[in-house]
């Protein structure tokens, strides 16, 4: 399974290329708008219909591509139907994460489930690397099951941080080094 950093890298490349292209197009059009045209300035309807077709193609294919290339999407959409090697029950109340153990030890390369329950407010449950980059996250809504199914592709240690605002008291909802993933290094 690829890491979320790889997915974000891909997205960064695609979006940056798009931005450069669209800015170049608008700049070119803007300059040309003030110049007298050398020929008849009629935009052919077929160009318009081709553009509509392109938009439809992009809109639909984006999700098909990500469904087939981002590894966590099928698990995510199938939700509770996924069999997990281990489940970690976490509770959140009074702006504090209550973990079943001081550090959750997670088997690398196996699908696990984080089952997080809020006893009061809406929170977020995010796993972050030591460099503060985001591995994964979900919303934690009170009164509902909040299950995040995930497979870690490499050994590492992650911190838990709330990714949702829950009032000023939730300003620093962080549990440092709360999750340790082990078992892949040998392989």
């Amino acid at each position, binding site marked *: 399974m690829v890491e*979320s950093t790889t*997915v*974000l890298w891909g*997205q960064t490349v695609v*979006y940056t290329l798009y931005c450069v292209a*669209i*800015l170049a197009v*608008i700049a070119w059009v*803007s300059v*040309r*708008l003030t*110049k*007298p*045209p050398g020929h008849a*300035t*009629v*935009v052919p309807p077929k160009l*318009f219909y081709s*553009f*509509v077709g392109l*938009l439809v193609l992009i*809109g639909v294919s*984006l999700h098909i591509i*990500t*469904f087939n*290339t*981002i590894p*966590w*999407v099928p698990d*995510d*959409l199938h*939700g509770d139907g996924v069999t997990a090697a281990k489940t970690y029950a976490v509770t959140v109340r009074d702006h504090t994460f209550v973990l079943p153990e001081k550090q959750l030890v997670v088997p690398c390369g196996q699908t696990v489930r984080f089952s997080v329950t809020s006893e*009061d*407010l*809406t929170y*977020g449950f*995010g796993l*972050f690397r030591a460099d*503060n*980059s985001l*591995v*994964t*996250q979900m*919303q934690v*809504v*009170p*009164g*509902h*099951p*909040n*299950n*995040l199914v995930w497979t870690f592709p490499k050994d590492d240690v992650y911190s838990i*941080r709330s*990714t949702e*605002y*829950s*009032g*000023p008291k939730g*300003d*620093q909802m962080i549990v440092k080094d709360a999750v340790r993933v082990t078992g892949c290094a040998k392989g």
Partner: protein
Amino acid sequence: MTAMTFTETLVHGHERAFRPSTLTPMQKLTLKYVVFGLIYYAFAAIEGMLMRINQVQPQELLYPERYYSMLTAHPLVGIFGSSYLLVFGAFTFLVPFLMKKPLWSFKVATWTLWLIVGGVFTFWLDGFISHYAPLYTLYWPLPADFSQFHPLSGAIFITGIALVMVGTGLFVLNVFKTIAYTPAGWEKQPSRELLADALGLSTLGRILRGRKAKPEAEHKTPLAVAAIARGTIDVALNVAIILFTGVLILVYMVAKLFGADLAKTSVDALLYKNWFWWGLDLVADGLVLVFVAGAWYLLAQLITGRQVFMAKWARMALGVELVVSWTVWSHHLLSDQAQPAALKVGSGELVTAFELITQGLAFFITLATLWQARPLQMTMPLRFLLGGLTGFALAVPAGIMQADAGLNRVLHNTQWVVGPHVHVAVLVGLTMTLYAAVYLLLPILTNGAQLWSEKLGKAHFWLHLVGGIGMGAFMGMAGLQGMLRRTIYYNGEYSSYMWLAALSGALLLAALACFLVNIVMTLGLNGAKELFTKSTHPVDQLVPEPVE
């Protein structure tokens, strides 16, 4: 004639061309909407800059309670105080202008202005003093969490929002009445046909009966009025949702003030989230996109003096966008695990992707309209219109990307969402479109006042464009590194990006300063003062009669 000194221009305006005594009540009212819209824009911009500084290095003055109350007020002041007032002011003038008949009720339009101005000031001041900070999202039960917020401060805040919504409701009434009513002494107007045409119901009926849509010339309402009417449907629905939610929250607050603790579990947090996002998205993914597309078409028509390219498609896309806006809310809940997968995929991903199509069409149609009218002079309205098109061309695809189940897992609630998507859409896309309208309407609303400095206008454009895109880009880069959007970082985790975002924010403030100086020098301080005196013209007169 001797040249005017700087002080004379400051007092009397550029070449004394602005003569407020010639203004009609409608012109004065519209200019008041603009003045207050700009004042609240400055509020939001200054607050935004303070928060940008705090993201570089947390400041003692911006302790968490104050910071988060600012974070709560900032988007609400920006949208309701600035964007709503500018848009409502423009449309209150443009609907009668385009329909060639008087506004249905000048009094109602005046009430709209003061209710929104008063409501925004009420919730802003309450947040400033009491630090009520549930954010605009109001995720249940945070707005009624009395361990963090006093119920009285919450009640005042919600009352302020309610005042804005009542004023907004009156705007809705005025728009539809103006389209449909028959002014006194006029021949009876076909009210139903006018409304059905504006809302696209007559076209829908034709298509359902297997007939082709009418050619643009046969429509009873101009394209821009159709856009205003359709966007106003979302405004009305949004008013209903926010007012209902406000009453719900108020019930808990009033009960608490009387000593009763109502069970928070009586309200299902996920259902509430769906409900509230459905309502909020009528703004973000509804009226903003419909109004902006309509504004682009109108600006392109007025700049080129030509019919909009593919007008039939433009009209239909406005209708599709309206329906799409009712069904896209679930993209905000892609990280909510209890949300049904069918809603995530259907509403959250697939229907949301339609916004790429509808907004892409509006982008293409506007550019094609301009292109076919070459050569054009690069005026301030055209310059800012191109800026507005750029903003949405960058921001909409960014939004479509985060409305993907795979990418949302690592983008949700990060600075990516609020940077390249929200701020680029609002600051570059929406605000530059609004500036284009302000520059275009300035001579019409002031009976011929000319801009004091073209150079300052150009500085306004470039500083705003570079600042807006730059701020969004650097926030986005931080978001891709995991920086959350509603979190204070105390250890300089993202300070390099935040420095660059703050510098970009400073460019935006400098742009605003250029614009305000230019406007004040154009109209003069006396002119601004006289906006608040009574006009001698009748209230049903839109612009003064031309002198024979």
